[in-house]
């Protein structure tokens, strides 16, 4: 009863007209922003924050919750239609979303992405409502050595499972880690691999890399195949929404794992939703009876990715509201929003401003729910029309959109050239069978892995080998060995048995 009474007390304020309007407006803005490469939820909340100064705090938070949840789904739209992830978290959605769109089932892929995003967001909000204070303690149990092993675990699992060719998967991961270390090093600020370019000192932005790596190669490949492309149009194949809804039980098992990863990673500062979707996808592929179909248009891949990256939405806010430690960049901006309205994150927030903080949790839930009608009726149908554009016309549009996306990250023409360079790198990788996903994950996790490795070494003043002797580290190392060594060994044994039979 203690749990529900503050939620029930906060509910009437959430259901007022200005609040509902702010949530609907926020979700719409979020979907548009998320669907445009280069624009992120973090940036749009930061840009729109000054507009909320005069608003009631709960109305302002409702708008932020809407933008956040809307953008996380919006990122899936170009990922499915054009193979351009609108947000870093949607990289994994391209794996099966784009092939499904190429098979003429873009509408269906968008429906799966929408439902997975919405349910992921709702479940994440429920976790926040029910478990915020105890879960925040998990954050405190994970120091630099534990976070280092979480990062290594993610890299290894993805390099092994996403690439059909192990050496090439591992090489891709190393390329990503290398790109991630360009700039000033995270501990001593030593200049590394910048070749005297000031623009490279702050490192390579993941959006610039992502747009180049994912948007440009398909343009070049489509152009090489213009004989097929001129006048060619892709079918959208929307099936009745209720029919897609009835398929939901099929995804429960995948969603459960994605939920676990989303909550767990969301709580760890520095790790992000993009990482969750990789882990959830890898797990879904491993659980599937038909793992070969992943990467070729399996809707379960979209379900894992989208549920995973949205399951992290509210979870990433748990350490923010309970401890004042933002778990991600968007959580940091939302924390700024709380502070602007005189709400100091921390344990006192639940005592002094219970109506507002519980109201915010309800808003996180409601904006995920609103996503279904708004995303389903408006955004999905509207954006899916992109596929009706003939390919020779679509290619320059994607190129121009990529240019504006890369430019907007830091208003830098250097970033646009960098994006072009990554586009050519992506093309070479695609032609030589190097998987792209481990590169993106390497850039996301590289700085996290390195800074936590070096902090661990600095903390190990008594030479106790804390990287290997702390209990959680030992569990993570065991998981790492089980995940990376056993499956290839098992595969080898099965192949041998099959040959003998």
């Amino acid at each position, binding site marked *: 009863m203690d749990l529900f009474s503050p939620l029930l007390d906060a509910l009437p304020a959430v259901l007022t007209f200005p609040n509902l309007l702010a949530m609907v407006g926020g979700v719409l803005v979020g979907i*548009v*922003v998320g669907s*445009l490469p280069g*624009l992120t939820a973090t*940036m*749009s909340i930061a*840009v729109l924050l000054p507009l909320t100064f005069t608003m009631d705090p709960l109305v302002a938070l409702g708008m932020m919750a809407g933008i956040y949840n809307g953008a996380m789904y919006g990122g899936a739209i170009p990922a499915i239609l054009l193979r351009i992830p609108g947000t870093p978290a949607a990289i994994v959605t391209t794996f099966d979303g784009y092939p499904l769109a190429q098979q003429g089932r873009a509408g269906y892929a968008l429906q799966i992405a929408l439902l997975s995003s919405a349910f992921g967001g709702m479940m994440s909000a429920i976790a926040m409502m029910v478990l915020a204070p105890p879960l925040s303690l998990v954050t405190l149990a994970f120091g630099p050595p534990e976070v280092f092993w979480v990062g290594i675990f993610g890299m290894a699992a993805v390099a092994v499972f996403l690439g059909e060719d192990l*050496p*090439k998967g*591992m*090489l891709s991961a*190393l*390329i990503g*880690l*290398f790109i991630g*270390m360009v700039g000033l*090093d995270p*501990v*001593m600020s*030593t200049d*590394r*691999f910048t070749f005297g370019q000031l623009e490279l000192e702050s490192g390579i932005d993941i959006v610039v890399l992502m747009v180049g790596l994912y948007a*440009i190669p398909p343009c*070049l*490949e489509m*152009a*090489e*195949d*213009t004989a097929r492309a*001129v*006048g060619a149009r892709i079918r959208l194949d929307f099936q009745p929404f209720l029919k897609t809804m009835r398929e939901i039980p099929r995804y429960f098992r995948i969603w459960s794992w994605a939920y676990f990863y989303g909550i767990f990673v969301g709580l760890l500062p520095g790790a992000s939703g993009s990482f969750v979707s990789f882990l959830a996808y890898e797990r879904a592929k491993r659980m599937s009876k038909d793992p070969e179909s992943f990467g070729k248009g399996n809707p379960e891949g979209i379900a894992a990715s989208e549920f995973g990256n949205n399951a992290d939405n509210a979870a990433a806010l748990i350490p923010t509201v309970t401890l004042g430690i933002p778990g991600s960049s968007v959580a940091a901006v939302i924390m700024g929003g709380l502070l602007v309205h005189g709400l100091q994150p921390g344990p006192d927030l639940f005592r002094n401003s219970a109506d507002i903080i519980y109201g915010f949790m309800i808003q996180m839930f409601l904006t995920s729910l609103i996503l279904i009608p708004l995303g389903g009726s408006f955004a999905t149908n509207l954006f899916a029309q992109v596929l009706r*554009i*003939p*390919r*020779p*016309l679509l*290619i*320059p*549009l994607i*190129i*121009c*959109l990529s*240019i*504006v996306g890369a*430019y*907007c990250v830091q*208003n830098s*023409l250097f970033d*646009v*050239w960098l994006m*072009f360079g990554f*586009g*050519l790198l992506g*093309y070479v990788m695609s*032609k*030589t069978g*190097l998987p792209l996903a481990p590169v993106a994950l390497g850039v996301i996790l590289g700085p996290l*892995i390195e800074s936590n*490795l*070096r902090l661990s070494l600095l903390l190990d003043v008594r030479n106790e080998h804390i990287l290997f002797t702390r209990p959680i580290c030992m569990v993570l190392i065991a998981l790492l060995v089980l995940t990376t060594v056993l499956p290839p060994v098992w595969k080898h044994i099965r192949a041998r048995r099959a040959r003998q039979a």
Partner: protein
Amino acid sequence: MKSIHNDVVLGTSVAILAALGIHRALGFGADARVFPLLVLGPAVLLGLLIAVRGYLKQTRTGDNPDFFASPGRFFLVAGVMALALIGLKYLGFLTTSALTVPLLSVTLGYRRALPILATTAGFLAMVYIVFIQILSRPLPAEIWTRLGGS
């Protein structure tokens, strides 16, 4: 004449670049070079492994897939994109896009004027409304604003 397998070129290039990276990393401070060496060392080995494997595969099977499906169209798109990036600095984003979209569509074989013009106009309007008006993102200045302002 037997051409070189793609994996041989890929693996050798990666190994050489990673070795050059190691050479550069050795010049960093003691702490700053640990992670680069941990990454680039295995990259050299993997590059060599992929190159040797590619060579053996080609020797055994004679298999060597083509790299380009159509080199002409590849260089056309890459070239127009490079021109667009140069144009961005001097002409501004909207002007560059207004030229790039029709030019590339036509050269790729799509010749219907009305859809080209309508799509280009729609795209420019979307960028103007979302990026410039709503989110106030400053895009590279248009040439006409600079001419008008001087």
